[in-house]
């Protein structure tokens, strides 16, 4: 059975754009299951429900969990690997004599779930976890650029992280909405007129970008061109 693991980011981007329902349709076309690790569920549902902000958004996510569009994952193996990955990632970079705590447990639970479930991919909108998996050198450069003091790298720990995560494929909410668009799921929003497809694609991409998906304007323009040329 195929599986796609979600970090909180893409669920937040979709919900805040009133697009969470798109997951119902995408799941039908996925031929597998969508999962959120337990710590991610806590970020998405439990914490906002305990406060005043984003409460209704939390209820929408909770509804998708009850409908089994999103399944909550929690196993001892995932927990153990998440803790190991957290330890490795947070002991990979040192600045001014201090280990940089670059990631949090929920994000490592996403990666651990992907490894244990042998997932088809993970959906992550934020940049740091994505770079840790795909391009740790770019992450080193980013840290060096922004932090005062030399960033030293624990290559051994980075390599171990890489060893665990090398088969993980990452997509973002922008790719999810583009696939939904290509499948015609969003055609009901098309306006009359020549530029209607471009308008729809731009509106979708800007929507998720403005709610936190790590996509630059250049990438966004490239995606618009890809989707609307010919």
């Amino acid at each position, binding site marked *: 059975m195929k599986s796609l693991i979600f970090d909180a980011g893409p669920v937040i981007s979709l919900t*805040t754009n009133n697009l969470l329902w798109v997951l119902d349709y995408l799941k039908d076309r996925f031929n597998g299951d969508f999962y959120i690790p337990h710590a991610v569920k806590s970020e998405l549902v439990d914490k906002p429900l305990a406060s005043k902000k984003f409460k209704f958004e939390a209820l929408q996510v909770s509804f998708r969990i009850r409908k089994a569009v999103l399944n909550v994952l929690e196993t001892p193996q995932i927990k153990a690997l998440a803790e190991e990955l957290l330890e490795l990632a947070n002991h990979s970079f040192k600045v001014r004599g*201090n280990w940089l705590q*670059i990631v*949090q447990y929920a994000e490592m639970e996403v990666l651990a779930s992907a490894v244990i479930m042998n997932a088809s991919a993970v959906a992550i909108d934020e940049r740091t976890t994505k770079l840790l998996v795909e391009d740790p050198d770019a992450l080193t450069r980013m840290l060096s650029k922004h*932090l005062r003091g030399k960033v030293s790298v624990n290559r051994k720990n980075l390599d171990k992280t890489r060893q665990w995560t090398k088969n993980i494929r990452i997509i973002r909410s922008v790719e999810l909405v583009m696939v939904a668009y290509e499948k015609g799921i969003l055609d009901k929003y098309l306006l009359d007129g020549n530029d209607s497809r471009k308008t729809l694609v731009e509106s979708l991409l800007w929507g998720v970008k403005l709610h936190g998906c790590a996509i630059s*304007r250049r990438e966004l323009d490239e*995606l618009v061109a890809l989707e609307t040329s010919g």
Partner: protein
Amino acid sequence: MDENIPKAVKKDLVQVLKKAQRYINSGHSKKLKHLSDYTIKNASSFQDPDSLSMAVVIYALSKLLERWGFDSEYAEDARNLLASANFSLEKDAVTEYRDKVKKLFEFTSSIDDKFKLYIDRVIEQAQIKKGSRIYEHGISVARASEMLGVGRWELMSYIGKTRIHDETEVITDVKQRLDVARSLFNQGK
């Protein structure tokens, strides 16, 4: 809470407290905000509560003094509290220093009841803003939200409205990533 403040952090905090008093004297709201950003660099590196709270309180003071005026009695009170915190830190009285920083927070919210909502909003905005800075430095969203005690929903939505993802662009193959997504959904109903 740990009684010690790392030497490098203490040195920076003393500088920040001194500069903050100077900028309040000269009415430099922008410089106060920059000072808060400077402090947040330490917060990203050391992830210590002292740098984090200093960054938030300096930003909040800059916003509040813009509203109340840098020649108001509040400005003088703020300056005195900063001087007092500086004094405690320089003599290594860490608990006393932290009590005084707490007083600075209380000061921002005790001035006038009718501004209470505005001040709460300013503090909250300061936390979200500082969280986005930490993310900009390369720390993950979840970690930044944990450090500042703000929700991930709030932080993600704020980050999306900044230019962080444009200014520190990570080059990726757009088509390749889209193809991965396409390949996942090419079956089913």
